[in-house]
Every structure is written in C-alpha cells, then in structure tokens.
C-alpha cells in the first residue's frame, strides 16, 4: 500500500515541499494531502496544485514525474520509504534521521545534508555537496548512507563526522573536504584536492588521484575492513568487482594541516 503523487503541473520556479515525508502524509485522506501547504517560489500554495494524489499512505510514498524543481523531498524524515520515479530537486532528505529514499533518476545539489540516519539511493547522478554540512556549519552528516550510482559534483561529504557516502561514477573536486570521520567510496575518479583539511575518516577511490602535498604515502596494503564496505555496497547494487575487493591500495595519510589521521586509499591498477 502506497500513497502515489504524480506531478502534473511542473513548477516554474522551485517548489519547497518538505511535507513530502511518510510521517507527514500518514493518515491523511487524498483531499487532506492535496491541501497541504507548499512554497512555490515565494508564494504559499497547495500540494494539489502540482500533484495528483491517489492511494493511501502505508509507510511508502511514491512520487512520479520530473521533480527536479521540487526541493526538500523527505527532509527530516525518520522512517518509511519514498520512491521518486523521476528526478529529485535540491536538499533531498535534508536532515533525515531514518527511513529510505530511492530516486530512480538524478538528484540536484545538497543530497542528504546533515543527515543522521537512514539511506538515500540515487540511481542516476547527483549534484554538488552530496552529504555535506551547510555553509557555516562545522559538522555535516552524522550517520546514514548515501549511494549514488552515477556521478556526483564537488565537495561530497564536506564536514562529515560519521556515515557512508558511495559514488558509483566520478566525483568533483574537494571530495571529503574537512572530513571529520566516516567513509567516502568513489568507484570512479576523484576530482582535485580530495581530503583537503580532513581530520580523520576514509576516502577510497578505484583510480589514481593527485594528492595534496600535505598527504604522505604510508604503504600499499590490502585493507580487510574495506572488503566489508565493498561487500555492503555490492549488496546495495553497486558494481564492485573482485579486483576491488581483494586489491592492494595505497594508503595516503593526511591532511597534515590538521590531525593527519585521515586516509585516502587508492586502488593500484
């Protein structure tokens, strides 16, 4: 049993729809759901002006259409499941504490900022700042998982303290900038300056990367813990091959301008 919302009126400007969470929609009739307030640009509007509503909320909400201008889907959600059959806009799952969001298409910038639990899966690509701290905030993601099957933009995992971010493709610059802890796995290429300012935590890439001069090569080894992470990601559907599971990785330690307790692991070809 799911509640189905189909976008029939594509918003001309961003639509802020933080009401789109399983808990907020639970127990509402179709009419009550359609009357929920959203913000269209700088104007209050009703959800029903944009979405056709059907079904009953039973823990799962299905959103259909090109929602790339719909912001804050699943923001603050604690449980249940949201499936976006299409693309999702910015701030998807912002501050979520539990539950799962699955986006069949792409997602905009700021996927899961400062989330503390739950899982976000993007089958397509995501924008910048995936799993990052908001500007001015010293700490970003504190838990949960974000899995992007495609590419991601700059500054993924900025300020992350705990959690897992996995990118199936390439990512932009400054991956794991100011990382406090947690794990970032990029199956593709890292952009410029990975791990800049990182204190602790792990950044993994399956390709060579140009490291900052404040990182030093410790050794090449086969990290057993990584096998558990990669096995977990394989179960989630990411294409992890045996060479990545069993391979040897360079261990770069940094950032020396901070604690130098962080690590960047780069798979040797």
């Amino acid at each position, binding site marked *: 049993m799911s509640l189905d919302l189909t976008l029939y009126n594509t918003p001309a400007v961003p639509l802020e729809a933080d009401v789109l969470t399983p808990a907020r929609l639970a127990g509402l009739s179709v009419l009550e759901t359609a009357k929920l307030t959203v913000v269209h640009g700088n104007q209050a509007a009703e959800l029903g002006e944009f979405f056709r509503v059907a079904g009953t909320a039973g823990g799962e909400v299905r959103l259909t259409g090109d929602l790339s201008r719909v912001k804050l889907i699943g923001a603050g959600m604690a449980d249940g499941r949201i499936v976006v059959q299409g693309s999702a806009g910015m701030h998807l799952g912002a501050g979520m504490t539990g539950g799962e969001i699955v986006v069949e298409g792409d997602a905009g910038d700021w996927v899961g900022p400062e989330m503390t639990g739950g899982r976000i899966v993007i089958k397509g690509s995501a924008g910048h700042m995936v799993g990052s701290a908001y500007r001015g905030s010293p700490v970003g993601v504190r*838990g949960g*998982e974000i899995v992007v099957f495609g590419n991601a933009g700059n500054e993924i995992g900025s300020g992350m303290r*705990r959690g*897992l971010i996995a990118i199936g493709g390439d990512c932009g610059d400054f991956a794991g900038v100011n990382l406090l*802890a947690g*794990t970032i796995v990029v199956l593709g290429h890292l952009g410029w300056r990975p791990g800049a300012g990182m204190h*602790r935590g*792990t950044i993994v890439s399956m390709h060579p990367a140009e490291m900052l001069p404040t990182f030093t090569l410790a050794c090449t*080894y*086969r*990290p*057993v*813990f990584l*096998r*558990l*992470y990669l*096995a*977990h990601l394989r179960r989630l559907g990411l294409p992890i091959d045996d060479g990545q*599971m*069993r391979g040897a990785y360079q261990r770069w330690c940094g950032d020396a301008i901070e604690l130098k*307790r962080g*690590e960047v692991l780069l798979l040797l070809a």
Partner: protein
Amino acid sequence: MHINGTEIVETFAEAFAMWGTRVLITAETADWARAAAQSMTGFATSIIGCKCEAGIEAELPGPETPDGRPGVSVLLFSTSAEGLGKRLVERVGQCVMTCPTTACYSGLPAEETVIVGGQLRYFGDKYQISKLLAGRRLWRVPVMDGEFLVDDRFGIQPAVGGGNILILSRDQLAGLRAAEAAVAAMRGTPGAILPFPGGVVRSGSKPKSRYKFLFASTNDAYCPTLRSVTPETQVMAEAGCVLEIVIDGLDLAAVETAMRRGIHAAAGAGALQISAGNYGGGLGQYRIELYPLLEGAEAGV
C-alpha cells in the same frame, strides 16, 4: 535398549547452564585462520581448570565469512556473561590478534553483548580507527602486517555445557575406535563443540574429593582399575576402558543432536556399553535422558 549390539544404559547426562558465543576468525589462507582458531581454543578443555571451554565449530569457505576470506568459527563457553567477556578479550587478544593476517568477528546475533574490540583497541595506542557500518562498529588496530580488524562487541547467549556420553569398551584400542567414530559423527553439528583433546576425555571427574583443597577428582566409578575397589563402580566386567565425550552447545537442541549422533556412531563401532555422566541430577540445570533422546530418532539425526 541396544543399538547394533551395544547396550545403552537407561540414565541421563547432567548438563549445566553456561554462556556461549561464536567467534568468526578469517585470514588470508585457511591455514592461518585455523592456526588462530587452534591457538584460541587451546587450554580450554574444562571450566574446572581453564576458566572456559572452547572448540572449533566449523571451517568456513570465503563466501560464508564477513570479509570473503577463508575462516573458522569457534565456540567459547563460560559460566557467566562477565567471565565470557573476559575470556574473549584474553583469547582474541592473545591468540587471534597475534596471528598474521587475521580478522575477528562476532558470529552470534544476540541481544546480549560483551565488549571485545572496544577493549583491544587500546593496543592501537591512539592510532586505532573506528568504523561504523550498518550499525556495526569495528576497530582497525594497526599491527605490523597491516591492520587487525575486530568487532567492537560480540554477541553472547545462554548456552548448555557438559552434555556427555560415556563409551565403555573392551580395551583402549576398541575404546579409541568407538570414540573416534563418535567424534567424527558429532563434529560439524551446528552450535556444538567437543572441548577436549581430539574431542575425547579419559580423565572424567566427579565434583568432590577426599582432599579438602580439591573440588574435583577422578571419576572412580568409571575407572576400570578400581572396579573391584570402589563400591560405586559402574564398569561392567568385560570393560577395560571408558572414554567420555563432552559436548557444549549454544542451546540444548545442539547438545542433544550431537549426543544422538555420537551414540549411534559409537554403537556402530563396537562399544560394549554407552552411558552418560551425571551427579544424581542435583547439580545441573539440564537432564538429557538417553532413552527419550534415542527413541524414534534416526541415526545421524
């Protein structure tokens, strides 16, 4: 009751409430995983003198272990949850962490847990790294061949210790044949281990002594050399050797399954008589009656 000509004594095995855990050890090769497991289960035959009882439950192929490497599952038992936690820290720290390429995981999903990796992490001298994956905290302790990976907490659960069978045979060679057949049949029972050397114990004990400083002493009732000396003798006239197989299990069903398999195997291997050790039922929390255990059960079940 007779099975394959072997008399089964109408008696019961007296077993005890314990706490148990399952430890998964992996390594780059099966040999190194086995080396760690053998070390960890060494000197763990009897709670009386070793503070814990342990044994290898099974060897695991890579696909069945958390990190995909070959592994061994070990069961460890002690009389209290606190004691089990201490023994785990000691043995994982001294026998697994020390062994090249190994990693060590909790193999028992359980509500009750004890901290193991969370204690051993201090060996990392602040260079250790914590990882939290899907609610499971692991510790990466830097060691000279790379890292030792260990679960923060290990699951423990109430368990059963001291299930047993006694195999009475004409002489030592016949006794060994029957006991070896029983051990072969009992090993591999999920959730059960045989903690004694080769799975067999020849120095069965009773929980008392004529010496004040000793709380356990030889089970004279089953010593063939004392058959004409001790009034409590249970050794039949034709028997010159008694061997015991002790079973610890994560639950009663595992102990019973192992006992059933062992009795059928020993009977088929020419034991004169099979009995079980008990203390009159006044000590243990479990009575495993041999006849109900065997009645209606197929060999190997």
